[in-house]
């Protein structure tokens, strides 16, 4: 196979490079074995374990896992009012955060991508990203301070005869919206920036006033980016259980139920844990229809 190669310059490194050049499969396997192992064993493997253990049960006296096949956990999920309530509440929070993020992000992104002077735009993008540099916990505790009794929110609203929202569901939604907002702004900013200016010219040229151009051209072309951003905000909100512990008062979300069940009833926690996975898969399937996944 290597007989036709001239002998000159055949160092081991060159020979290896030649071998890799001729064998495409070998090249691919060297490149991908390690990351694929990581993905298969640690990621998909643990998901599989999670799913399988959700079908086990526990000894109610010792809390030890009993490896007996049963669908009781899923039955409990669907029939116990508390579980159903918490699941629906979690989905509701994730949706509310997503909608709020989209509503806040759109005008901001419109400003950074199309209104601000071009030389300011990179700086504004950096400004949007700076909150991501700070630790998650620091930001959530900052919100706890803002929302606490006689905190910043109370103090600012006092002159209007109002009070802050205090800790609870609204505080959770506000804090999560703040946390995930950059993930919504960035894709919308990119989409608006890439929107060709002559499409807006063409729309005006054909008689459309700015509002019409926005509805008929800008919005439909940016919608996939909104959907792409919503994948982040929705899934990050659905999986969160720390923010709600810090600013949520007594509010419970799926994450809290998983957390509190881990010690006592591991299979139940596993069953609860599969809920966000299923919801997010359904959400991704829905978003795929909008073309959002190709703009990620």
């Amino acid at each position: 196979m290597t007989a036709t190669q001239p002998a000159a310059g055949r160092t081991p490194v060159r020979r290896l490079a030649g071998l890799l050049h001729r064998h495409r499969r070998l090249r691919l396997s060297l490149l991908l074995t390690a990351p694929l192992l990581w993905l298969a064993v640690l990621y998909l493997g643990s998901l599989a374990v999670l799913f399988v253990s959700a079908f086990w049960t526990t000894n109610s006296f010792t809390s030890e896992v009993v490896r007996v096949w049963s669908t009781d956990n899923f039955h409990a999920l669907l029939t116990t009012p508390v579980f159903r309530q918490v699941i629906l509440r979690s989905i509701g929070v994730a949706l509310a955060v997503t909608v709020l993020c989209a509503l806040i992000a759109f005008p901001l992104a419109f400003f950074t991508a199309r209104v601000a002077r071009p030389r300011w735009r990179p700086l504004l993008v950096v400004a949007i990203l700076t909150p991501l540099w700070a630790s998650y916990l620091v930001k959530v505790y900052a919100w706890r301070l803002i929302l606490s009794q006689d905190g910043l929110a109370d103090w600012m609203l006092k002159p209007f005869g109002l009070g802050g929202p205090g800790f609870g569901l609204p505080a959770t939604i506000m804090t999560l919206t703040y946390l995930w907002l950059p993930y919504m702004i960035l894709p919308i900013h990119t989409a608006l920036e890439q929107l060709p200016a002559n499409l807006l010219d063409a729309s005006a040229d054909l008689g459309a006033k700015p509002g019409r151009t926005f509805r008929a051209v800008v919005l439909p072309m940016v919608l996939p980016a909104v959907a792409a951003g919503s994948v982040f905000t929705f899934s990050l909100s659905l999986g969160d259980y720390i923010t709600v512990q810090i600013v949520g008062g007594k509010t419970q979300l799926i994450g809290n139920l998983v957390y509190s069940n881990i010690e006592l009833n591991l299979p139940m926690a596993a069953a609860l844990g599969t809920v966000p996975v299923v919801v997010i898969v359904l959400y991704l399937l829905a978003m795929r229809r909008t073309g959002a996944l190709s703009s990620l």
Partner: protein
Amino acid sequence: MKGSAIRLQGLRKEFGGTTAVAGVDLEIADGEFFSMLGPSGSGKTTVLRMIAGFESPSSGTIELAGQEVTGLAPFERDVHTVFQDYALFPHMTVEQNVAYGLKIRKVSKAERLKQARKALADVRLEGFGKRRPSQLSGGQRQRVALARALVCRPRLLLLDEPLGALDLKLREQMQVELKALQREVGITFVFVTHDQEEALTMSDRIAVFNQGRIEQVGTPAEIYERPATSFVASFVGTSNLLDGDAAERVVGKPGTFSIRPEKIRVLKESALADVPEHATAVGTVAEVVYLGDATRFLVDLDDGGRLTALQQNLETSSEDVAAFRGNRVRLQWHRDHAVQVPDAS
């Protein structure tokens, strides 16, 4: 007597410190096929964008059909544009693209579908209505853009280098089709191009732009045969300028003269001028270029200067052509064809 479709007066446009358009006065008649010709950066596209309303002039006025529109937005003007890269809406089908203007004018759904189909048929794109712009070729997109602009029957159609992205064969075909379409619909066309051949073949009149100003306005024949400035002489057609001492010796008077290559005959050196209207000059063939249908001779004149002459290949073939290099020849042209142009300033 036809009315005026466009009247531009003292139109100027500055971007930051640079002047894109430096005072343009122009009147275009109803139903005219009018071309704005010039190199890139000469201000022709900026003038077009100001007529459409995408840019507002720094000073000067724009009148469309006798009405001043200088301060109006694009959607307040009865003007449609065919953009250089077509600017079709990628999220709409071809039919929706074409019907867009009608939808804004609140034409009923059945009616706008009918008109959009008719407009697509006019540009020979029947059956393409349900496709997306991304599924069409460049030439097809160009025709969709044309249909979209024409379906609302504007008084004035602006075309910004609409054929620039097409290959040569398609471009020549579209030139003929565009001209025929314009004659058919009777709408005023303002056509921006940097391609002098395109401007010459399609236009009723041409304005030649250079550095934000109009150098000359005239019919294609006027522009070509009687260039008003040395810029027009060199930009439109092949440059063949004689000036200084060479001009004085060859033409007999001082100044700058333009002679079109195809007006010059290449004769044997011994040939004599047969009629007094003919001027001649002798020289040595420096280069011969075989073009297939014609041959281009570059001749260094004994009196100084170099002239290009173009000869139809009636009897000569490629073998004969090479033998001409280094030969002594006599060039002959009609005195009227040496057109004096103002000196380049």
